[in-house]
């Protein structure tokens, strides 16, 4: 087993959690910015935050895709890109695993 396989394998294990953490961070930051800019009422902010925090995976992804003040393309990049990145890394790791 080579070092590359170890690194990619570890990253494949870490990446989904890191991507989810990043989605949460971006979504909560965006909620905070919208509150500060008075684009979002306190009730709405609480509701969005609760959804982002308590609906696993889907909550943060839905916020980034549908309700963020971010450019639509950027939200999609984060969500779809995160999923694609995970699948790519997973595929490489599986390939190295099978070849190793």
């Amino acid at each position: 087993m080579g070092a590359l396989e170890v690194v990619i394998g570890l990253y494949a294990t870490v990446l989904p959690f890191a991507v989810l953490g990043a989605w949460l961070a971006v979504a909560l930051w965006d909620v905070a910015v919208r509150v500060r800019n008075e684009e979002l009422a306190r009730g709405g902010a609480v509701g969005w935050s609760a959804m982002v925090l308590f609906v696993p995976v889907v909550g943060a992804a839905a916020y980034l895709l549908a309700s963020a003040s971010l450019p639509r393309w950027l939200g999609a990049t984060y969500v779809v890109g995160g999923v694609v990145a995970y699948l790519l890394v997973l595929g490489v790791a599986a390939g190295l695993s099978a070849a190793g």
Partner: protein
Amino acid sequence: MREDAALACRGSGVETVSSWARPDERPGARSDARPVARAKGRGSRSLLLGLLALAAVFTGSCSGIDEPAVTTIDMEDNAFSREVTRIGVGEAVRFRNRGLVPHNAIDLDGAWSTGEVAGGGPADVMAPEEEVTITFTEPGVHTFYCSLHAPSDASAGMVATLVVGEVAFQAAGEDAPDDPVTGWTGVTREVPSEHPTIQNAVDAADPGDLVLIAPAPERPEHLAADGSYVYKEQVDVTTPYLTIRGTDRNEVIVDAEHQRPLGINVVAADGVAVENLTVRNATANGIYWTSLTGYRGSYLTAYNNAIYGIYAFDATDGLFEHSYASGSKDAAFYIGQCDPCDAVITDVLAENNGMGYSGTNSSEVFIVDSVWRHNVSGIVPNTLDSQREAPFGRVTIAGNLIHDNDSREAPALGLQWSAFGNGVLLTGGLDSLVERNRIVNHERSGVTAGPNLSRNFWMTGGHVVRDNVIEASGYGDLVLAGPALGGSCFSGNTPSRTVPTGLESVAGCGPDAVAGAHAAPADPDRGPFRLPSRQDLAPTLSFIGLVAEGEFGLQPDNDHRDTPVPPDQPPLPDGADAPVVPAVDVFATHDLDLAAITVPELPPEVTVGRSSVATVGDVPFGLGGFSALYGVLGWLAPFALVAGWMGLSLVDLARREELTVGTRAGWTAGVMLVPFVGAPAYLLVGGSALPRWLRLMTVLGASLVALVLLGIAVIVGGLL
């Protein structure tokens, strides 16, 4: 390569000597020995001591003081590191225990011993990592031996020779092997009616004889502290092809009285069978075979022997059957340092030990149809650098009942504690099969395959774990601890919880999977597409936490002498009249039908149930503070750092509206796709709008703090 003292002074200050012998030399005169020093240390905590020693080398040892050259002879488990060592007159030998069990070195003629040099008796032992240095001032030849692992005539086993000065010496050649004695000679040596001691009978016997032992006579010299009548002796066996048999398994007792290291000690004597008797209270091992081919232990009871109960080392072609062992701090049954071992353990019961089975660097061992219960851990094949033939491989574990091996009442040594709470623990070996066992009630795991850190880092792979019934494991019914080699697969075990999650789905076995694919993980019998599941470090770090507990002495301190005396065990059918069969071609003639083995039933007295342990990211909380500490610092904290870097990077990219779409998309891809360094690279060189101090603190400061905390934890845990 030997160098003189002046040259050694420029290096480490200590040099070792390669063994060599001149064919025209003959044994010469003896030499005088003078003890000069004794040092005790622990290699695992030697970093600081090593630095201090390095300083001493450059400040003291090289200041012109004429120190004698020192040659190191390592004591491994169970051999000296060289058979013949030559030194000059006035030079010294440093004996260093690099094994995991005690050893000593005793001159055959009684001129010196490591025990006496250390201020004790001649047979006193050196614990692991202890050292004794002896200076030899006269020319001569010394044959020396370890009294725990060789007979007192040094005829075989852990024996070596030291040649001091230019004296004649001829290394002994190997004796030509005798033809095996496959049948009984018809001669029976009876104890005590013909021979007063077992040793007398063994010494009088010829190959193929039966030594038949009746219960010890009711005379004062045979009276034990518990009121029973026993044989108070250590029996050294060097005659091959004997059958040593008790007439009554429960009444014929060899008692070492917690004074002698061994009960029955078979050294370099092929084909010896020991049957139908009890051995107890040895300070090392109950019944021991070493350096031989062909052995059998049948209807034996071994209890309250300090290290091992029934033990074969550097021995091949063997069988342990219908036997019982309890109250050993290391293992009830042990087979070590053999490849192939060609050994079978069947219908045995091990309870109240450090480990039920331990096998270091032993391959081709079959452990079947036995019961392993209430030990600190159950069945533990393992790989260590302290013995030869590493790693272990091709061990078959089938049809066993393995339950409640998470005892805090059983005796255990520190290292053995690191295996606590596992039914089957495959550490650092390859290509083994765990099949059709019933494995229930373990605080940690039913079956774990993981790496082992000895002097080398031994990874595991190529195992097949299938069709076991595994229930009530606190941490995981199946655990694959990373980093691991490929080729291990898990199917049909009906686990309720695995680590990593979904192990049977991502690393399942095909219908025709066979053990042995660590070198060919793409084996189609393991499925066409195997998800990576071999890098989960959380269970490994949890395991290291137990090692730290052992280093700290936090494991329960149970005295093996307090282990309950077992009830009477089933005797050898036909007793004294059973056929006499020397242990020749044991493996080939044993009827082992693996296909017929089924999952054993759960006895009605066993209640299934263990509480699941709470985990975060596979790090267990509730299996000891060190396990959680190492899991958090070694696994969760790096996880959190990577997630934090990625989150911070994406937030910052979202804010930077001055960038083009292509630049932001490109950095986003880099942050996500480049393992571990993509996000830090963006934060450090990507033109982030975040304050510089924040970026430096987040990337470099947090990494440094994480490493320092982990380093402190490793040092505090005694792992360096």
